[in-house]
Each structure stands twice: as C-alpha cells, then as structure tokens.
C-alpha cells in the first residue's frame, strides 16, 4: 500500500519506505551520514524503523478495539437498538412472522439505522481527546487511519449481526433462519463492506463539524440507500418460506461494484479530510 501514488492535488508525499532514503528523512537517524546541519543532534539518537502501512493499521485497530472494550459505547448500543426495533416491528405490524421482501426490508433498514449509531461514534474519541493530532504528527501513511477505522467498523457490524440476526429470526422471521444461513452471511458481508467504507468516510467528514450528530446521518443515509436496496433484494429470496433460489447474482454484483466504488472514493479523498 505504501507505494500507491497520492491522490491528484494532494501534497506530494513519498511513500514511507522511500522516505528513509531521502536526505532529510528522520526515520533512521542513526544511519544518516553526519552533515553540518546535524551539529545539534538529539541527545539519544535512537534507531527507528520505518513504520509500514499494515503495522500502522494494526496499531490503530488495536487501540480502537481496546477503547471500545473499555467504553462499550458502540457495539452494545447498536445491538440493543436493533433488537429493540425488531420488538417494535413485532408489535407495530401485529404480525408474528414476516418473510420475503418484507422480512429483508425490515432486517436491512434496522441494520442500517443501527450502523449509523456506530458511524456517529467512530471518530468521537479521536476528535475529543486529540487522537487526530497525535496521529497526524506521526510519520505514517494517513490512509492507514481510513483502513483501520473501516475495519474496526466492519468488526462492529459483524458483532451487531451476530446478535441482531438471530433476534430477528426469533422475533419476526417466518421461515427458519437455518435455511438462509449458507448464503445470508455472504450478503451481509457485502453490505457491511459498503457500510464500512461509506460510514468511515462520512464519519471523518462529520466529526470535525459542530453539528456532527446531525450531519453524520444526513450524509450517510442517502449514500447507504443503494446498499439497502441491493442487500434487501439479494436477501429476499433467502428469507422466503420454502426458498430454493440463492441470492440473485445481479444484486450481489451491484453491491460489490458499489462497495468498490466507494472504497476507492474513500481512499482517494480521505487524506484531504484530515488536512487543515
């Protein structure tokens, strides 16, 4: 990843691996030849390794999951919200069981709204506790923050679904969830990838504004609508009583293309969002 060219218009930053060979690169000070400009070196010239892209991603993810484990601010709230919505639907629809398009719609709208709760919290600790500045001062590829946050959000969504989907099967779904299981996780994962890419991008944009709690959902929901459409269409046959078909390939492909497009857009613009 560190050899990827910066987006057009961005400040030209050589990849981390290349920086160690530049005259002013600080990454391996002990290896640098002595020059007149080094007449006042730091008291302890410690060897520092250039930090690779995936090591940076791992460091951020580790911190991210540790903070979530300590605070339990995102995943429990998302899960509880989803289960509560299923209970509300159970009584509001006055139905014990739904299937097909109806079931897929309820499932995906609920997952989407629960995801928005996590998206809104994704960068809050970084914005409020100076994590952004701490990260920006490090000599690392800034896109690592996007990837780490998107992966963290993906993990939150998977945990959410481990709670919410069985609850949905228990409270609302007419056919047995077991029949949908071989194919449903794949559809969920495709949907989650898109939500993670769009959610991370929107969260990074919204968190630096005063109205982030409002702006986050307002920006995210329209962008997430195609995912809901694609994922619901792909899931509907799996949630139909006595289904024999797998998920339609057309909708799976639509989801995959949408995920890819927004993944690339997020990669291209994320650096600008972090800039002053």
């Amino acid at each position: 990843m560190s050899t990827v060219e910066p987006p057009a218009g961005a400040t030209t930053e050589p990849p981390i691996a290349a920086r160690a060979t530049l005259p002013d690169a600080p990454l391996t000070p002990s290896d640098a030849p002595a020059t007149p400009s080094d007449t006042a070196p730091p008291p302890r010239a410690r060897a520092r390794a250039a930090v690779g892209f995936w090591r940076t991603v791992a460091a951020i993810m580790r911190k991210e999951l540790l903070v979530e484990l300590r605070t339990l601010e995102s995943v429990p709230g998302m899960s509880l919200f989803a289960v509560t919505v299923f209970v509300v639907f159970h009584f509001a629809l006055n139905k014990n069981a739904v299937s097909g398009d109806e079931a897929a719609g309820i499932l995906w709208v609920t997952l989407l709204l629960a995801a928005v709760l996590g998206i809104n919290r994704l960068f809050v600790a970084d914005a409020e506790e100076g994590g952004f500045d701490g990260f920006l001062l490090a000599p690392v590829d800034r896109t690592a923050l996007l990837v780490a946050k998107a992966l963290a959000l993906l993990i939150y969504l998977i945990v959410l679904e481990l709670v919410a989907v069985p609850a949905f099967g228990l409270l609302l779904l007419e056919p047995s969830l077991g029949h949908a299981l071989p194919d449903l996780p794949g559809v969920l994962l495709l949907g989650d990838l898109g939500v993670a890419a769009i959610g991370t991008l929107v969260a990074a944009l919204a968190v630096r504004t005063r109205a982030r709690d409002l702006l986050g959902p307002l920006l995210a929901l329209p962008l997430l609508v195609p995912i809901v459409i694609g994922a619901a269409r792909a899931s509907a046959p799996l949630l139909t009583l006595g289904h024999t078909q797998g998920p339609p390939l057309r909708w799976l492909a639509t989801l995959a293309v949408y995920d890819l497009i927004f993944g690339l857009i997020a990669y291209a613009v994320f650096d600008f969002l972090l800039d002053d």
Partner: protein
Amino acid sequence: MSAAPTPALQLEDLTRHYGERTALGDVSLTLARGQTLVVLGPNGAGKTTLLRVLATLLRPHAGSAQVLGNSLPDAAWAVRGRIGLLGHEPLLYRELSARENLRYHARLHGVAEERVEELLDAVGIAGRTREPLRTLSRGMTQRVAVARAVLHDPELLLLDEPRANLDPAGAALLEPLIGAPCARTRVLCSHDPAADLAGADLVLGLRAGRQVLLAPPSALADSEIGALYR
C-alpha cells in the same frame, strides 16, 4: 569548505488566518539548531497557532516556513516524526492507560517498546501505568503527555506552557526531558517569563497575532516584556 548548517526554523512573514481574523501575521525569524525560542504574549496572541503551524497541523496562509530545512506545507511529511508537540491537550486517550497510550504512539513512530518503559520511569508514574488516564490527575496526565512528546527523540520540541498543572517536583523531574538540559531545539510558549527567559536564546513577543518583539533575552528590558501584557 562546508556548507552553513540549516537553521532549525526560518520564518518569513508567516501568516495564518481563522476566517477573517488574522491569528498570526507576518512573523519572521531564524532559529539555529539546538537553540531555544521563547514565545511570549497575552492570551489570544497567536502562540498556540504558531506552534500548530510549526507542527504541520495548520497550513500557513501566507509567507514561508522552513522547519528543520523543509518547507511547509509541501514537505510537511519530512518534518513529522522529527517534532515533539506538547500542547494544551495531552493527545492521549482517556480510557487507555499511560502504558497503552505510549505503546500506541511508539508503534506509530516505529519506536521500541523498551523506550516506553524507560519514559514511564523517567516521568515518575511507573506505579500507575495500568490505570486509565481519566483516573489520573492533570499533573500526572501532563507527565504522560511529556513522555509522549519526547518518545521518538524529536529534534524539535514545541512546548505550549509545559509546566501547566505540574507541581515543583514534577516540573523538576521533567526538566531533563524538555528543559534546557535536553539539548534539543525548543520553541517554548510561556506565561512565566521569569522562569523561562533564563534558558532562552531568542525571545519572540506576539500581540494580537503580530510580532512586536524579537531579540535575545540579554537585549530585553523588563519594561518591554511587561508592555506585552498591558
């Protein structure tokens, strides 16, 4: 014949706005490597803005800034990792312990974890390294922030009132890391001229974002410093 050493800082008419307001206007100075610049001025004078521009966190809007021989903002990437910033905020996660915070920053800077343990001892919080930062006092948190700022042995230290919240013993403990004995280039924003001018090589006075004073401390009269705050 060897080339002249590159200055640590070379600023020419450095300007930064916040909307319509000029937070920093036409600041020009040169600071040699290993020297200490003390920045004085009342609240809102532009001291913190100057530090954030030098730390590459804010872009200059006019003028030029060369930091450690690199022009900002184009070569900001070459400066990051060589700067230690100690600002008003500790840049630490409240839910993580001191050790966890420092290990996180050590990984970002490619620093060995032994350095974390060394610094936890050096800042005198070795007994409380497992507690979440939110349970520590402001003084203890400031000690951890100092450890974070010097974790990667930066060549340039940007210090915004570094003794804030520290008791005298704490301030003395941190002196080898961020005081004159650390032998790094330092930019020190201060509200305590009496304490900080002793270690200064150059004094910059700011008022309402404008440079109103630039001289070595030996050339300054007490009345000139006092006038900054009136």
